[in-house]
């Protein structure tokens, strides 16, 4: 089959790399959705802020630069929660979502102003660029960042799984995600759980900022915007009600996009978005509660 023949190990490596990054973003979005029932459209702007931090600290030692990136992203994530999410906690999903649109535009507009101080659009974050070099594994060139991305994603997911399974705060978070009101009645402190989710989601955004700037060191205000939209779609396709289905959805849409891109004839790759989104529609029609959501929940959303 010509479709399979065009998928080589190189493509598979890229597919796993992008899938891993999208999985991290999906966890960050899914975690906040779990406790707040809020789809955070402005998640990409956290990553954008991290990428700008990396760009502006290029002259620093790499470790310091990465630490600064994490600090800025987590601080911004907490500020977003305090100033925007908290006042909106009792609002309808549509209002929360549209408010995060506004926040997203606000942060992009602010980034544009900061960026344009030097008269040119865009900054270059080159400190972490060496990770983009290829290494040869069994005769195939695979970029180092692919291994780093997959490694970071697996590490972060295992760590998060352990925290959620073994610690008190993890237990509280899971309780809040399944039924916030009952969890509060049983003594789960809302602000602590939400704070935890917001900080973890910020840390993940920081990690994604580092990984994305390795692949694309040119940072501008719309950095990670498209990726965020794709991941949001993937999260809903996978099943946003549970963290693991959301994560798998994020991974799947990254993985599948790279494979479809490789499988399309070269002159047809311009229609890649159409093919991917047509798949999205088909999956949503067949499994409205999510591709990976099994059991009774799967049939609930259907009218």
């Amino acid at each position, binding site marked *: 089959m010509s479709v399979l023949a065009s998928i080589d190990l190189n493509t598979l490596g890229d597919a796993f790399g992008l899938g891993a990054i999208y999985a991290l973003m999906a966890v960050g979005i899914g975690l906040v959705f779990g406790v707040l029932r809020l*789809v955070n459209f402005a998640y990409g702007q956290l990553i954008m802020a991290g990428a700008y931090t990396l760009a502006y600290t290029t002259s620093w030692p790499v470790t310091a630069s990465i630490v600064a990136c994490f600090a800025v992203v987590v601080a911004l994530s907490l500020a977003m929660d305090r100033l*925007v999410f908290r*006042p*909106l906690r*009792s*609002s*309808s*999903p*549509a*209002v929360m*979502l*549209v*408010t995060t*649109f*506004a*926040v997203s*535009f*606000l942060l*992009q*507009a*602010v980034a*544009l*102003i900061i960026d*344009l101080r030097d008269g040119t659009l865009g900054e270059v974050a080159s400190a972490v660029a060496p990770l983009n070099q290829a290494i040869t594994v069994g005769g195939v060139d695979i970029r180092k960042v692919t291994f780093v991305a997959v490694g970071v994603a697996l590490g972060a997911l295992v760590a998060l799984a352990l925290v959620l399974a073994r610690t008190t705060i993890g237990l509280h978070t899971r309780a809040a995600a399944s039924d916030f009101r009952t969890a509060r009645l049983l003594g789960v402190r809302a602000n602590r759980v939400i704070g935890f989710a917001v900080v973890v989601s910020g840390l993940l955004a920081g990690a994604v900022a580092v990984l994305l700037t390795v692949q694309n060191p040119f940072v501008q205000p719309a950095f990670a915007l498209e990726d965020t*939209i794709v991941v*949001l*779609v993937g999260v*809903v*396709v996978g099943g*946003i009600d549970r963290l693991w289905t959301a994560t798998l959805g994020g991974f799947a849409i990254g993985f599948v996009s790279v494979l479809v891109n490789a499988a399309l004839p070269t002159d047809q790759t*311009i*229609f890649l*978005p*159409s093919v991917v*989104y*047509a798949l*999205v*529609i088909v999956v*949503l*029609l067949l499994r*409205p*509660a999510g591709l990976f959501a099994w059991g009774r929940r799967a049939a609930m*959303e*259907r*009218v």
Partner: protein
Amino acid sequence: MRLPFDALTELLGPALLVILVGALATTASASNEGYFLNALVSVSVVVAIYVFVGISGVLSFGQISFVAVGAFAAGVMSVPVESKKGVLTSIFPFLRDHSVGNVPSLLLAAALGGAFAFLVGMPLMRLSGLAAGIATFAVLEITHNVLREWDKIGPGATTLALVPETTGALQATLGALVAIVVAFLYQRSRRGRLLRASREDPAVARSVGVNIHLERLLAFTLSGALAGFAGGLYVHLLGSITTEQVYLELTFLTLAMLVIGGLTSLWGAVIGALAVSGLDSFLSRAEQSGVHVVYTFNLWEGTRLVFLAAIMALVLIVRPSGLTGGREFRLRRIPWRGRWAGASPKPPG
């Protein structure tokens, strides 16, 4: 359909407001007129979105696809035949050799928008909640991708220019009025009420025999037709258009207008569109001609967007139910005077 006085005020409030804006547009200077016309076209787009999203309560990110289809259909079909060979070189010969006038192009835009919405809606209207939001968003992405890359049906990634600029004050006002009247008649009709019932409680609505899939499909189609029509008005206002102008930014901006005005009322759709357009116009005037809001920001590009986004977020945080509280325009009886006085209703809480 009986139209008591209360129902008429529900129509007259938005209609008179739109006529007032149209009248202001005719008195404004040439450089300011564009702001008013833009606001009026925004009203048509937001009312079109309201017909589906507001009345059904199902979030759709896809209505701008129908605006895009309408805009490009009306645009491509109204570029004069003699200029088409130069501008749209790779287009299908049938489209290249025919052109239509202003009004037929608007009707064509509405028909195509409605037909496209009907086709898309048939499968998608089975969905609700976030799945519906994402599926309609996928429609927007596909529409944009095809319009942008397939240069046999339109200009592709280049700008479509030389569209007659027929949307003046009269056409913009009449267009907005048409959208408002259609939306009003639909929401007062039996079908509109059935859909509204399904928004308030799907289970109860179904139990009394409402076919939710059918009602949503009808509203989606009507909304698509109005959106296509608004797209036609838009392209005739701009004179030239690219696919990027009817894509993500317009989707988010118009949805924000609807939610800021008040998601569940026609009055909210009109107020939201006019308030956000007005604010945007004021801010861009302030940015251009030095009406300093805060003087230092005036030097930088893009501050208009900072203020616009910040004020929109603030309004949503302070008044989550929107400026109108999602209620229709009403004249309230003031009992101790025994006569009618105009007032917009107070929001709940």
